[in-house]
């Protein structure tokens, strides 16, 4: 268990699976599915072992090829990376198991192996981007992530998918270029691409080249803002997340946008450092965008009729919460931000997967047509209700705890007026989530009577949904399970 090569094994497993799938395309779907399940389970177990290792023995660094970090690539496996890697692998394991039956309905048969190749490459790049300590390596992984996430949106060859994916790709490319330019500016000042070495060099260079670093910071923030769908730059998100096939939506909303936020956090806190950032006033700036995003995301969601679009806009609002936590620039702010990353991944996956199950079963996407569906698909709508009530902030589900912690972080940072914004956004969330639940359980549908039936959805779709909902409730009652790890993870950003 204290094998330090576990992260590399994890990456190798993910990449290897992605490469082997096209070779296996001739075999039946069942064998391929079993193989994929094993692969992702092994990946999840490896990541859990890594986390346990780090929690017991402390952080370690991994130098590729035994090259010295100033010119080689280094991976830093500390509590933060290990915890987030566990999140990525476990959530994607559940979503992939869900997707086996779902993609048969949504995609054409011959593209399904390609779909899984893209997903595994995407996972590979997500894990890589979380673990890496090298700026350019992070850029490379980010590009892979960008391309593969566009791929899983456009894999359904409909017109709206292609347009959404094209928009995502172009905006993503602008974002990537922006980040590359920022990294180049930083390299200009420090001469090193490694994050820990750059930190010391930048602290020294700040007094000599302040403008350089500020321009770099500007480009990097804008680039990550586009890719992480921070409010004014979020315009690609509703189309991409609502038209994509359901497992892709769950992965995109739940994980991909968060990985970009991790990149931003790493650069802000580990490369440039909290001192310089507070001097310039970046946290305040980020907070303004976050607040506007929290409110406007929900305002836009109220007017939507398609259920996946509502969930996509809701993601924009929730990313506002996460950015708010970062913008407070305190330890409790960052820890609540990471806590909300985990909670939102769970809740949004539950919501997307259950919406996908409804679409799988009945083909209905418009919320006005969902009357009485709670009786036809009780388990699915229960999972949806758990996710929705968590978004609103009902105690007992983990969304409440993240609002609770966020309120305390806001008060500790001395900005009590933001409490009103959190209150308002919770209420706005209620306005568009409650009607869906009420329609599902309490209105009569036109074609059938409201008698309780069993879900017709296949078990391989129901069980992951149930597990995710169960985890939501478990962490709602016992949030210390995650918060303990996250608080240790946050210290790695402040104690350099």
């Amino acid at each position, binding site marked *: 268990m204290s094998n330090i090569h576990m992260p590399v094994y994890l990456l190798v497993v993910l990449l290897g699976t992605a490469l082997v799938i096209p070779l296996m395309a001739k075999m039946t779907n069942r064998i391929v599915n079993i193989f994929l399940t094993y692969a992702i389970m092994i990946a999840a177990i490896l990541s859990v072992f890594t986390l346990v290792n780090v929690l017991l023995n402390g952080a370690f660094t991994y130098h590729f090829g035994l090259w010295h970090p100033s010119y080689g690539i280094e991976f830093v496996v500390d509590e933060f990376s290990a915890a987030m890697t566990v999140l990525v692998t476990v959530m994607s394991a559940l979503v992939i198991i869900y997707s086996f039956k779902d993609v048969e309905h949504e995609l054409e048969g011959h593209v399904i192996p390609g779909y899984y190749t893209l997903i595994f490459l995407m996972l590979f790049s997500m894990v890589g981007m979380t673990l890496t300590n090298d700026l350019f390596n992070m850029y490379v992984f980010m590009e892979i992530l960008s391309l593969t996430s566009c791929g899983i949106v456009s894999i359904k060859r409909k017109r709206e998918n292609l347009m959404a994916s094209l*928009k995502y790709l*172009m*905006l993503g490319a*602008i974002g990537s270029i*922006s980040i590359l330019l920022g990294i180049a500016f930083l390299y200009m000042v420090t001469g090193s691409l490694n994050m820990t070495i750059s930190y010391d060099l930048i602290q020294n260079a700040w007094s000599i080249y302040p*403008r350089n670093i*500020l*321009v770099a*910071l*500007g*480009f990097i*923030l*804008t680039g990550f*803002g*586009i890719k992480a769908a921070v409010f*004014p*730059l979020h*315009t690609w998100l*509703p*189309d991409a997340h609502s038209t994509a096939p359901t497992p892709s939506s769950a992965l995109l909303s739940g994980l991909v946008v968060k990985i970009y936020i991790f990149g931003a956090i790493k650069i802000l806190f580990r490369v440039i450092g909290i001192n310089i950032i507070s001097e*310039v*006033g970046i946290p305040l*700036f980020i907070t303004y965008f976050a607040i506007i995003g929290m409110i*406007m995301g929900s*305002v*836009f969601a*109220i*007017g*939507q009729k398609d259920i996946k679009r509502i969930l996509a806009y809701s993601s924009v609002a929730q990313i506002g919460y996460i950015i708010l936590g970062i913008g407070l620039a305190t330890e409790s702010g960052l820890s609540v931000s990471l806590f909300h990353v985990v909670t939102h991944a769970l809740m949004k996956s539950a919501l997307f997967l259950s919406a996908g199950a409804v679409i799988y079963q009945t083909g209905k996407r418009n919320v006005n047509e969902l009357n009485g569906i709670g009786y036809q698909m009780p388990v699915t709508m229960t999972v949806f209700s758990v996710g929705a*009530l968590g978004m*609103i*902030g*009902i*105690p*007992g589900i983990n969304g409440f*705890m993240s609002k*609770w912690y966020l*309120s*305390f972080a806001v*008060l*500790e940072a001395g900005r*009590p007026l933001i*409490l009103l914004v959190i*209150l308002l956004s*919770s*209420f706005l969330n*209620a*306005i568009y989530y*409650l*009607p869906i639940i*009420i329609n599902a359980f*309490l*209105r*009569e549908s036109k074609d059938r009577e*409201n008698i309780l039936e069993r879900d017709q959805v296949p078990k391989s779709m129901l069980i992951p949904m149930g597990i995710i909902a169960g985890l939501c409730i478990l962490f709602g*009652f*016992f*949030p*210390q399970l995650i*918060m303990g790890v996250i608080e240790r993870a946050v210290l790695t950003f402040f104690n350099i």
Partner: protein
Amino acid sequence: MVPSGSKEDRNKTGKQGKPLNKWYYRVLNYFCISCIIMFIITLLLVGAFVAVVIGRTSDGANGNIGGSLTVLYNLLDPLTNYAYLPLLAVFVPLIGGPLEAFIGKRNEGLRDFTVVFSTFGTFIIILAMFPQVADGGITNSIPGVFGYGLHFKVDMLSYIMVSTAGVLWLMVSIYAHEYMGMEHHRDRFYLFMSITFGGVLGTVMASDILTMFLFFELMTFSSYLLVAHNQSPDSILAGNNYIYMGVGGGLAVLVGMILLLFNTNHLDFVFLATELSELGWMQYLISGLFIIGFGIKAGMLPLHIWLPKAHPVAPTPASALLSGLLIKIGAYGLLRVTTSFYMPSADLISGKTDPLWALSKNMGIVVIWIGVITMAVGVFMALQQSNMKKMLAYHSISQMGYIVMGIGAASYLGYIGAMGFAGAIYHTINHAFFKALLFMVVGVIYVKTHEIDMYKLGGLWRQMPFTAFVCLIAALGITGMPGFNGFASKSILHHAIVESYEYGHPSFRYAEIIFTIVSGGTVCSFIKLFSYAFLGKCPEKFQNISKDGNGMMQMAMGGLALLIIGIGLAPGFIMDQFIIPAASNFTYDPYFIKKYLVDMNFFNQKDLLAMVPVYILGIGIFLTGKKFDLFHLHMPRWMDFEFILYKPIYKNVMRISQGVTERYETRTNNADVYIYAMILVASLFFLAAYLR
């Protein structure tokens, strides 16, 4: 519509085709037998409980009977000394609910039996808690949940609410069986009724505000499903109103709780006046948030609008519970906050003029006036209604105004506020009983005649003599006739408001005048109900309504009526045994309690005489109204609160949201890339501004 009492159909084809309209055949199915048995056991237990309670605290003539029963009680020691009784009391209904829903799919009779049995079991657990509570309260905790743990504490104040809840739920469960024959989706109803019961018990037994908040939200959501049960469009609208306001109230309490925890580092209900007084304007914000949050639940003006919508559409057992108990939880929350957060601890103050009482005093003024206005508006609106349930709903608002006024008086008078405290709690208990009974009566009328408009009824006392009799008892209770329970609580509340203007600001004299007028209005309204529904000429179509199928309902109503009369004849019992120990837990002047509250003579001349003008006023308003046909007037539309305040807000929010979405979002989403590029350039420009 399913005909009432599906059992009748099954029983009609009985063994060997014998005619089955004898009453004993109907009664002999096992649900009824078990209910009768449980009812009789309950009566005996309550009687024994009363005797034991008296026996514990007094020696003398009652001591011997009480003594022997105490010996019996002591035999039950293992049960009564079980440390986890509160947790058990909360979890039995929460587990019983899904169990009932599960059984209900297979056998409806067994399910109804389980419902009554689980409430009966919970009631026994509640009774068993008394010895420990009287000794000093029970505490339980579930550690680790939410990071702070769940904490329960049953002191005398909680115990009063818990036992009221237990009795009420038991009676309503017995009642619900026959009423619900008329509704569909019965499993769902009983499931959520049990979950609401668990939620209510959890809320009142909570010892810190986070636990209370958890169960409060649970209760709001499960009672929503009781309100929207019918699934008719009106029910859905009323339910929407209820749940949005419920969620809003919960959020207000949440923000208040977070501010409180952050500023004083306390979540539990301890005396916090010293810490709060150091906070400046923040203390008023926290108090205001709590008042709004609990006030929405309690039906305080101007947040009461969900009440008159929710009651007519909910099935009658749900209305009885909603009016009987759930709105009291709002008042209970307010009372808890008043007696713990606003109150300094006893050793820190020097008397009733200590400046630490400032917060309590200021909030008290606000709460008293809100209570008085609520009372007045409630009665005023009630007099205009023809729908019986809506009238009772407005009366609930009015009576909650009494309770809130009592809480306000307790808060305002501070150290000497024990009278207001006692009045509020006493009226909570009494209102629970008589309002539930009134709703049950209306429910029986509805089951028999399918008519809810009182102007279309009449002369029903011949067909339903027992129902008319209990309705009379309940009406006398609510109006405050001496000998029935309302008299005791209304006179205490009257004393409280008189004290407010004696010891406090003289403007409360007007509050007292409004109090008297409102009591008169209540009298008038119930004369109206009783005369229109039961007296007078019976319309044609109601001449031959069926007389059977409501044995259980009558039994439940009878139980509540017995309680009303019992409390009415011996009002000192509840006062001495329950309310005064509850008040002693808080910082109230013990000398004041001893002088005015202990062994209070309820039937003194002054109070009895004070009821006379009330009744005369009521009869006067009724006769005037009938003569000049005033009851058909309705308030002009522009004065209706909902119209001027809530509808515009709602419409505007939706309009702005749609408009903004339309204009900005869809346009930018479908535009060309150069618009995105412009947004990006703008952001970069923003950042570049920092370079200066």
